[in-house]
């Protein structure tokens, strides 16, 4: 994009712009940094709140302990599979539905569109949800991770809004050529929607990666545990061990520091779970550059 010549106004603008973003970014990073240095610092220093700017007594035991959790490798695999497959399914399902609803000729469009949107605002409760899942055979089944979220109503809305801004001429020419809906969608609309698709990918994959409530209620087979769930369980266990020491006569026989519930473990788990996301997101950023697509395709 062509930049206006370097005027005072331009320099001032850029200075302010850069500064504001720099400051905000620092504010965003600092807590993350704080958590990170606490996980690699001596645990007792960390828990007494003395680690603020620089790590002290550096060690990696916290990570070593977390990585020793049984079943971690398998859980990571499950989480990855779920994220990849779930995101792919949601991507296709949600965008197609958004496209379909954007077509005015869709049969009873208003009705069905509302049918989908309204589901964002009600929630029947965990127990009916569980019974339904059970009756649908979704208990202890990998499909329970990826099927229910195939349609993400929020993104159906966004995708539809987006599609409605694409000039109709593009699609009509294909229609005149006799292309069916499937072709029109996959060949024309889908490729043009890079930014919104990338958005769906980002949000959905993070959602898949982070979820664990479904594992908690639906899964019995430990081979289907996800990473988040496994670590959530591990954290609970550590807390519980400390709690049970408290209430038994044996509590007085152990070193008091064994009663510490593990904030450092919680922090370590947070970092471990977030890192993969941080590696993936930058790859998707190239789709968020201004004014890229339509021009290129139309030309």
């Amino acid at each position: 994009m062509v930049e206006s010549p370097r005027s005072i106004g331009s320099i001032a603008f850029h200075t302010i712009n850069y500064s504001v973003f720099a400051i905000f970014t620092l504010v965003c990073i600092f807590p993350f940094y704080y958590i990170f240095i606490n996980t690699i610092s001596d645990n007792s220093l960390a828990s007494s709140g003395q680690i603020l700017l620089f790590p002290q007594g550096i060690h990696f035991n916290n990570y070593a302990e977390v990585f020793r959790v049984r079943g971690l490798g398998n859980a990571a695999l499950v989480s990855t599979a779920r994220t990849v497959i779930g995101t792919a399914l949601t991507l296709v399902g949600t965008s197609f539905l958004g496209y379909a609803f954007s077509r005015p000729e869709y049969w009873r469009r208003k009705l069905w569109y509302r049918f989908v949107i309204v589901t964002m605002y009600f929630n029947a409760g965990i127990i009916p949800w569980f019974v339904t899942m059970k009756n649908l055979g979704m208990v202890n089944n990998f499909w329970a991770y990826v099927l229910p979220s195939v349609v993400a109503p929020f993104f159906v809305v966004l995708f539809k809004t987006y599609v409605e801004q694409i000039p109709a001429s593009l699609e009509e020419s294909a229609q005149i050529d006799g292309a069916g809906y499937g072709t029109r969608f996959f060949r024309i609309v889908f490729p043009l929607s890079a930014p919104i698709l990338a958005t769906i990918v980002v949000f959905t994959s993070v959602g898949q990666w982070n979820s664990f409530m479904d594992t908690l209620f639906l899964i019995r087979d430990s081979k289907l545990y996800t990473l988040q769930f496994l670590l959530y369980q591990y954290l609970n266990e550590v807390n519980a061990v400390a709690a049970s020491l408290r209430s038994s006569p044996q509590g007085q026989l152990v070193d008091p520091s064994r009663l510490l519930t593990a904030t450092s473990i919680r922090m370590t788990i947070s970092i471990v779970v977030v890192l993969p996301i941080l590696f993936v997101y930058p790859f998707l950023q190239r789709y968020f550059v201004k004014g890229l697509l339509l021009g290129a395709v139309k030309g």
Partner: protein
Amino acid sequence: MYKWIGKSQAATLLMAVAVTAILGGCSDGSRNGGGSANSSTGPEGSKPAETVTLQVFSLPSNTSGLQQGWFADVLRDQVGVNLELLPAGDQGEQKLQALMAGGELPDIVVFKTKRQVEDAVRAGMLINLDDHIDKLPNVVKNAPAALQYYRDAASNGSGKAYAIPNQVGPSEVGATINYGPLIRWDLYKKLGMPQIKELEDYLPVLKQMQELEPKNKDGQKVYAFSLWQDWDSMQMMLAAQPSNFMGVDTGDQMGGSLPFMQVDVASGDTMSILDRDSQYIRALRFYYEANRMGLVDPDSLTQRWDTAVEKMNQGRVLFSIWPWYNNNKKELVDADPPTGFEFVPFDSYKGTWFGDNPIGNPWAFAISASTKHLDAALKYIDFMYSTEGLQVLMNGPKGVVWEMNEMGEPYITEQGWDLIENGKELPGGGVLGSAVNAVNAQGLSGAVIHSETNAPLNYALWPTTINRNPSKLSQDWQNATGFKTQTEMLKAKNMYTLSTLAMKLVPTIPEEINAKAARIGDVVKTNSWLAVFAKNEADFDKFVDEMASKAEALGLREVLEWDAAAWKQAQEEAERYK
């Protein structure tokens, strides 16, 4: 044109689909029965031919997955079962309801409350244990009163036992009772061990102690009290503690079963905790005065339990309510001079001493009506009520952690202490505590005597453990007081109150009363803290009065009426199950 799904992405998708297929296939078929059919082959008393995998849903527990390690080996060898624990997490209650709504429970369930048992019985989800009582000889031998109690009270009127309470047996008291208070012994001695007549007399002493040590070695401020809100459910939990020093319960033990009722555990007298002269209000005032004197950590309002423990560990707290809550690290209590916490009662102290418990605690074992491994389940449960079984689970196999000495007493070996204190793993995998932590429930109390060792099951109660090398600090305390342990002192001076069985026999609270209590609890919680941190006497009174009046408006009277009737019933029943 770069948004079409490229080749590499397609390849990834394909791979992912393949992985799904594999995982999807894995999830069917291989559950419920691990590697085998059921276990009832083989003659009576011998090892079953194959191991059965039992699915266990234990609400008090936080472990999950197929259990492995030394105790899993023990269970396999002696009982023929593998335990697969389903996660309960902190949504245990919800998950239980979901499972019940779904129509079936896992093989074994450990419930957390009597009401949960009642719900399950009413829904027909549990096996009638009386039909198979011949397969539960240890339960019958060691927990008869508990069985009977659940026959009467948790059977939906049928008079049959569907679940068995746990921790049945004599009072599990060794060197200490459940309550202190403990204070920094070294500082107390420096002050010349001034006399402390009443609860409130701790405050000036603590103030002087704070002046002796206003900062810890890292330069951080020291307070007498550092509080937390995490444990509050229907009242300020920490304000319900001091009454236990006087043998009165203001919610610590019975806050859930008799909301807002203060109970004298010996005489059975009751009053509302919101009355001006209750021990609960007295405790609020105690903390309020302490705060006015600068003895309370101002972060108490906003910190979590974790942080409070950390502060204790850093030596920033001078007063402890419970014996296990202290800073008695090895290097401190054996230093020269030693520092740490020891028991220092006030003159009129009458701490609550938990009595024998023939009817157990509500964490009850039950078997699902839809189990396919009834015999294995029965065997496992019976094992959890047998002294032989619990001896191994709580102490590890003989020769690993403990041995018998020449006088016929069990003792923990040096190697054993190493394993315990440093959290090391036993041969076979898993630390000592992993056995008990797995299901987090044991049929019998740790004080039940094992016939062979003639000692309690719980090694913390063994005389050899109690008399083990006392630290310099303990020796100092022992010399100053003339007693070896807190319990010895309390017994000798008759400074304790034995709790009555009635405390365990309160009937289940009905939902409408519970709902009212929950609402009132919200008000009580908030106002209690506001009162403690009030800036002056007038504000303190204002918050306390407001608490009482709001509670009245929300139906306190009804709750208390129910409480009174329920307590009366409990007292009557106590006679029956003695």
